[in-house]
């Protein structure tokens, strides 16, 4: 199974080498990959139908509980078939759709990576590897949406999609980590056993919120839905594959998968019902304000995703069954409608539904596919859509409360969705062919066969639901721990309330179709409302954030060194003062200190004098000389306190520094007081408080006992191990010899730098200034 998952990634690497041929002769070669995978996964058909679960396990980062465990159960099986099956048709379609595109190989590469990621996502039993594949789908989606990278709108949409789903990915990671900690396992199938533990944990709400965030962003739920219509900038095969049939269902998949872990909880159910309900209605109504075919489909997809989330929120057996069937139903008809749209777009050059008409004369097979998909979409009997819609109504009708509200919500949504289906699948083909389309050529077979296959499947399953009942649908329910043995998918239920609702939906959709014509007026009406849409609100927030960070940068990263120093020191002072004020004893044990002698006091007085002289000197030479005096005073202190080596080094270095300074001094400008009085006072206070803190700190440390272990080691071993009597020297050249060598290299580099700066020849403009 691992090879099957990674095949897409391996293939995309292979494309680097064989890309040129794929663009010319071997256009159909990439389609063999999903076909092969489809056949591979289809082999498991009997096993899954018999209720088996196929598992494979590879250790990966076991110490973190992150492993490559794959689990093929009913739910995963449906998705793998959708991914590879629709994948194959999309690959085939692409070979004609992007026939002369210069980057066809690149496109196939992204598409293959996406397919691999999506397969990994649905097969992962480890929530960490699920996260990994989840992110990979977002990234490949980014490249696919932005495939037409010369268009700014495309790039922007790609960034939006990546941003929104990327945030979702982070939420998923957070949720997964907490879930893993609470359940003490990262394996989803083991979490199911910990359901009670997780539900009683105080972190449950947090986990649920993170998982919701991930699922809602990925599956385009309100208010994160707007990236999906934007993603329609991608070439149509991408919209078909990623943004209707598979990737956007990943959020739904996650919710479905975690239902046995987190479900059956008021918070879980109400939140999902609320968000799903709002999304399905909001997006369904939006479809009447669009006249771009893909725009209409985008909103009807969002609405369908809303229905799925809503059904998972209902959480009853009937609702989950409805969701399981609807995933398949939606994938079949929506992918068809997208492919139909793509073919229309490619042939006529427009997707404006208000001008398209009469195309059945030119592209009869496409028209048939469109009709069949519209049938399934509207839930007309004999299509699988009818079964799906029936199940949705059964799900809402059997609820303990709010039956009327929720059912009417579902009916209204479905009316709009079926309207959208008629608009895309029927309207472009009926009526009189406008003159401008008369010269349109009939599309080639690869552009109409895939939608026809998908649409026919919808009808075949509709007539013979037993085909999918045991093999696909029942195992899905078993995989979320529901007994599915008494389920029967039926075409005819008899005269029940459900049938009445179905009829209402169909009639309502038809009425809307005949009464409402998509016009520019409706489009511009909805554009006016854009101001308050979630997208504009988030855009405003982003621009506010940009303003804020601009201000923040200007204030703190202002390019003045002294401001950086002040800020750092200020913060350090506050932090240190806070700590020191809390537990400082302020008891100074003078008895432990050595006694004062006259010459020490004299040295200190000289030093203090030199310090003040350095600060306030009016001439640069005087300041440099005074700083030299400070150095010599310290040198004397080293002499007093048993550090002859230090004294010698300090003396030599100090002398050299002063000489160097004096040598370059005469070249420099006048020594001026550049800052004003206030500024100097402020800096003075800051510097003094920091200095004061250092003094207090030093005294505090002096009050603590000293640890002499290291010194003792050197004192005892300097002669015995290293045969040197000056312990400081032995430490430097023997025990820490490597350090010293590196230090010497630093000096050598500095020397080279100095030499280079001195010898550097001025170039053109510099010489002129000279």
């Amino acid at each position, binding site marked *: 199974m691992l090879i099957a998952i990674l095949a897409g990634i391996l293939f995309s690497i292979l494309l680097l080498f064989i890309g040129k041929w794929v663009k010319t002769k071997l256009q159909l070669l990439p389609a063999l990959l999903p076909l092969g995978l489809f056949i591979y996964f289809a082999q498991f058909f009997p096993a899954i139908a018999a209720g088996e679960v196929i598992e494979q396990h590879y250790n990966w980062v076991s110490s973190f509980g992150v492993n490559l465990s794959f689990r093929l159960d009913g739910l995963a099986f449906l998705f793998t078939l959708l991914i590879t099956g629709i994948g194959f048709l999309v690959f085939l379609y692409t070979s004609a759709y992007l026939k002369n595109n210069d980057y066809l190989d690149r496109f196939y590469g992204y598409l293959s990576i996406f397919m691999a990621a999506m397969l990994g996502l649905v097969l992962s039993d480890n929530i960490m590897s699920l996260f990994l594949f989840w992110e990979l789908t977002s990234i490949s989606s980014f490249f696919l949406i932005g495939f037409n990278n010369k268009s700014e709108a495309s790039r922007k949409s790609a960034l939006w999609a990546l941003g929104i789903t990327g945030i979702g990915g982070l939420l998923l990671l957070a949720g997964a980590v907490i879930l893993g900690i609470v359940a003490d396992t990262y394996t989803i199938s083991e979490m199911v056993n910990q359901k009670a533990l997780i539900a009683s944990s105080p972190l449950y709400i947090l986990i649920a919120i993170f998982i919701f965030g991930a699922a809602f962003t990925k599956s385009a739920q309100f208010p994160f839905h707007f990236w999906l219509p934007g993603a329609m900038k991608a070439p149509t095969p991408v919209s078909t594959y990623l943004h209707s049939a598979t990737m956007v269902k990943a959020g739904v998949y996650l919710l479905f998968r975690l239902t046995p872990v987190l479900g059956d909880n008021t918070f879980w159910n109400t939140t999902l019902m609320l968000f799903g309900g709002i999304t399905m209605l909001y997006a369904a109504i939006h479809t009447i304000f669009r006249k771009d075919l893909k725009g209409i489909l985008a909103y009807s997809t969002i609405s369908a995703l809303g229905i799925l989330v809503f059904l998972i929120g209902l959480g009853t057996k009937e609702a989950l069954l409805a969701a399981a069937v609807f995933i398949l139903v939606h994938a079949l008809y929506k992918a068809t409608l997208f492919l139909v749209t793509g073919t229309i777009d490619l042939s006529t050059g427009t997707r404006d539904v208000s001008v398209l008409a009469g195309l059945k004369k030119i592209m009869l097979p496409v028209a048939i596919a469109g009709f069949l998909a519209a049938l399934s979409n509207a839930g007309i009997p004999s299509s699988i859509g009818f079964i799906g819609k029936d199940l949705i109504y059964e799900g809402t009708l059997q609820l303990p409360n709010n039956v009327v509200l929720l059912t009417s919500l579902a009916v209204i949504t479905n009316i709009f969705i079926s309207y959208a289906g008629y608009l895309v699948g029927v309207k472009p083909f009926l009526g009189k062919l406008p003159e401008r389309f008369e010269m349109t050529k009939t599309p080639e077979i690869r552009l109409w066969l895939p939608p026809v296959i998908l649409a026919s499947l919808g009808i075949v399953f509709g007539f013979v639901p037993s085909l999918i009942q045991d093999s696909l649908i029942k195992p899905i329910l078993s995989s979320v721990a529901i007994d599915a043995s008494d389920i029967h998918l039926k075409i005819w239920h008899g005269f029940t309330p459900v049938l009445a609702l179905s009829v209402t939906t169909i009639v309502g959709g038809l009425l809307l179709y005949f009464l409402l014509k998509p016009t520019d007026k409706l489009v511009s009406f909805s554009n006016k409302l854009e101001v308050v849409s979630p997208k504009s609100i988030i855009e405003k927030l982003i621009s506010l954030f940009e303003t804020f960070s601009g201000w923040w940068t200007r204030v703190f990263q202002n390019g003045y060194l002294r401001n950086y120093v002040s800020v750092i020191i200020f913060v350090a002072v506050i932090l240190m003062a806070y700590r020191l004020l809390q537990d400082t004893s302020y008891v100074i044990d003078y008895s432990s200190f*050595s006694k*004062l002698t006259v010459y020490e006091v004299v040295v200190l007085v000289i030093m*203090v004098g030199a310090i*003040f002289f350095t600060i306030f000197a009016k001439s640069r030479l005087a300041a440099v000389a005074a700083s030299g005096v400070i150095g010599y005073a310290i040198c004397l202190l080293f002499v007093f306190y048993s*550090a002859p*080596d*230090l004294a010698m080094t300090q003396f030599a270095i100090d002398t050299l520094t002063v000489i160097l300074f004096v040598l370059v001094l005469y070249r420099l400008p006048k020594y001026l007081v550049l800052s004003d009085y206030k500024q100097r006072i402020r800096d003075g206070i800051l510097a003094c408080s920091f200095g004061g803190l250092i003094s207090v700190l030093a005294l505090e440390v002096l009050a603590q006992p000293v640890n002499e272990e290291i010194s003792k080691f050197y004192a005892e071993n300097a002669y015995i191990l290293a045969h040197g*009597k*000056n312990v*400081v020297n032995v430490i430097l050249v023997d025990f820490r010899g490597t350090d010293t060598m590196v230090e010497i290299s630093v000096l050598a580099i500095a020397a080279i730098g100095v030499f280079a700066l001195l010898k550097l020849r001025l170039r053109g403009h510099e010489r002129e200034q000279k």
Partner: protein
Amino acid sequence: MEFLLAIITGLLYAAGLYMMMRRSLVKLILGLIIIGNGANLLIFLLGRITKGSPPIIGEHEKLLSDIYADPVPQALILTAIVISFGLQSFAIILVKRAYKVVKTDDLDKMKATDEEV
């Protein structure tokens, strides 16, 4: 004595910082030198100071005994002094060089990266 040394270490820090917050490049380097001295003195002081017994093993002995000044801080400071000299010399030459090009040692006038300063 330790008390006075602690005070003077603080004073060195304060003076160094004050100089670093000035606008002149030369003052900045002086500030760096002073604060470096302060840091050396702080390390020295915190390693405890001992009078008249340098960490040198006597003529006929094999190890340090009795009271001796801690050799570890001394080794650290020695390194620090030498390294800071590398930094200072480079900085001083850099100032000279920078002045040649931009004709100022005012840090505020060196902010722009363009050639017209």
